[in-house]
């Protein structure tokens, strides 16, 4: 049960219940669809990118608690950030999720995203935690086709 508590932390459950930046934004100039065919998680990420700055970001869709909370926390973390910084954070986040379970977590770099460290115990759920991020990345790099985790 302790691994479960690690996974389903209060903050994750809370963001699942009341996700931040949920819905469409009128001013969006980038929209990207993301899809996890294995489990049917499906979301859209909307961004307003101005120069190299992510000024606005939101998401909508359906998914498990992990994917929804990760999307919600992502929007909170990178809203107002330079694109390069957002991509770098994704890089660190991804590394953390796929690292060995006992590897120390770099809280400073990851900020709130560090609470997803518990996902490492559940390799099948890594894709849930990264779906929104992959989608955001494709959007800022101006991808056209829907992003798939497979």
């Amino acid at each position, binding site marked *: 049960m302790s691994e479960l508590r690690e996974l*389903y932390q209060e903050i994750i459950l809370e963001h699942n219940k009341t996700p931040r930046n949920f819905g469409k934004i009128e001013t969006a100039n980038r929209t990207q669809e993301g899809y996890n065919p294995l489990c049917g998680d499906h979301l859209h990420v909307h961004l307003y990118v101005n120069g190299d700055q992510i000024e606005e970001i939101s998401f909508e869709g359906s998914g498990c*608690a992990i994917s929804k909370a990760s999307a919600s926390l992502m929007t909170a973390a990178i809203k107002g950030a330079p694109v390069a910084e957002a991509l770098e954070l994704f890089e660190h986040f991804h590394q953390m999720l796929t690292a060995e379970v006992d590897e120390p977590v770099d809280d400073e770099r990851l900020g709130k995203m560090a609470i997803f460290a518990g996902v490492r115990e559940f390799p099948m759920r890594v894709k849930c935690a990264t779906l929104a991020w992959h989608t955001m990345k494709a959007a800022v790099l101006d991808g056209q086709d829907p992003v798939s985790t497979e």
Partner: protein
Amino acid sequence: MTALVERPAMDPSHSIDVEKIRRDFPVLNEKIRDKKLAYFDNGATTQKPLTVIYAVQRFYTTENANIHRGVHFLSQQATFAYERARGRIGQFLNARDNSEIVFVRGTTEAINLVAHSYGRPNVGEGDEIIISHIEHHSNIVPWQMLCEEKGAKLKVVPINEAGEFLFDEYEKLLSERTKIVAVTHASNALGTILPIKEITALAHKHGAVTVVDGAQGVPHLPVDMQDLDCDFYAFSGHKLFGPTGVGVLYGKKQLLDAMPPWEGGGSMIQRVSFEGTTYADPPTRFEAGTPNIAGGIGLEAAIDYVNSVGREAIAAYETELYDYAVEAIGEVPGLRLIGTAREKVAVLSFVLGDIHPHDIGTILDAEGVAVRAGHHCAQPTMQFYQVPATVRASLAFYNTRGEIDTLVKALHKVNEVFQ
């Protein structure tokens, strides 16, 4: 207190000794994260009894050789064993002739084979193919591909809220344009049983053939081909307690005889020259290349095992366990059963409040309970119920009431985490 209705005495041939059976399935003793395994993902694949494991092991240990080609002793032995397995499957399905049994990789390959070798020559522009709303993707996509290629139309028989096949609607869809009716024997996502015999009789009246996806039918239901009278029937060995990578296409002899091959290669020929090739008779015509020999032999062992437990006893036990499970999970607050057809195999598909099935699956797994969480390769079925996914517990005759209790307890835990 009112007098209890007297139950008919249990026919002893209808009861099974589940503890004894469980000893035949070694994997059931496994511990998952320090918890006893409760395996409820039988719809995805079933566990294997020792007799199957040993049959495969024995083949590789003492009999291994390729079939239908060597004159040496082992090749003859292997050929004999493989063909004996075919015969056993023929008996099991009550086929008229062993040549009606084609070995394939599984249900998916069997349906694709029919779409290719029966569908392509027999379906033309403006023709129609009928399927049901609750098909597995493997009984949807091959027909969509065929329709696209031929300019034919795919018609879908709707279901009601319980997940039942609407026979009247089916009747309305049938016409002289209908060439193929492809339906599942039992739905993997809901458990609904379809009335194959009646569906077939009506299809025949309109000159159409029926293709039955038996992946979930074979493990639970009587499969008498002469009684059902369907034209094709497909199933997978691995869902019938046999090995993965082997399955069966049953096809009526006169249909198979008229069909062109599916893949070209070794074994499926009569004579090859650069001027032209003549093909072997069925079933060989459809079995190009070296098949899964050990798989076929393992499947025979699986059928022997199922027969030794008794098909009727299995059905009776599963029904009783299913009724117990429905009542038990009914106590979990927020739980909604998806698929409540009167005629069902032992499948419990459900959602729990607005908790995503994946989260439920992960929490159940932490309690040692293995279920499937997802769309079950039946997205149109999920769309009908307007859910992205469900949790599915699909039962087998080695499951127990104790395991159901474990499932219920774990579901309460899910509610606790997500309170």
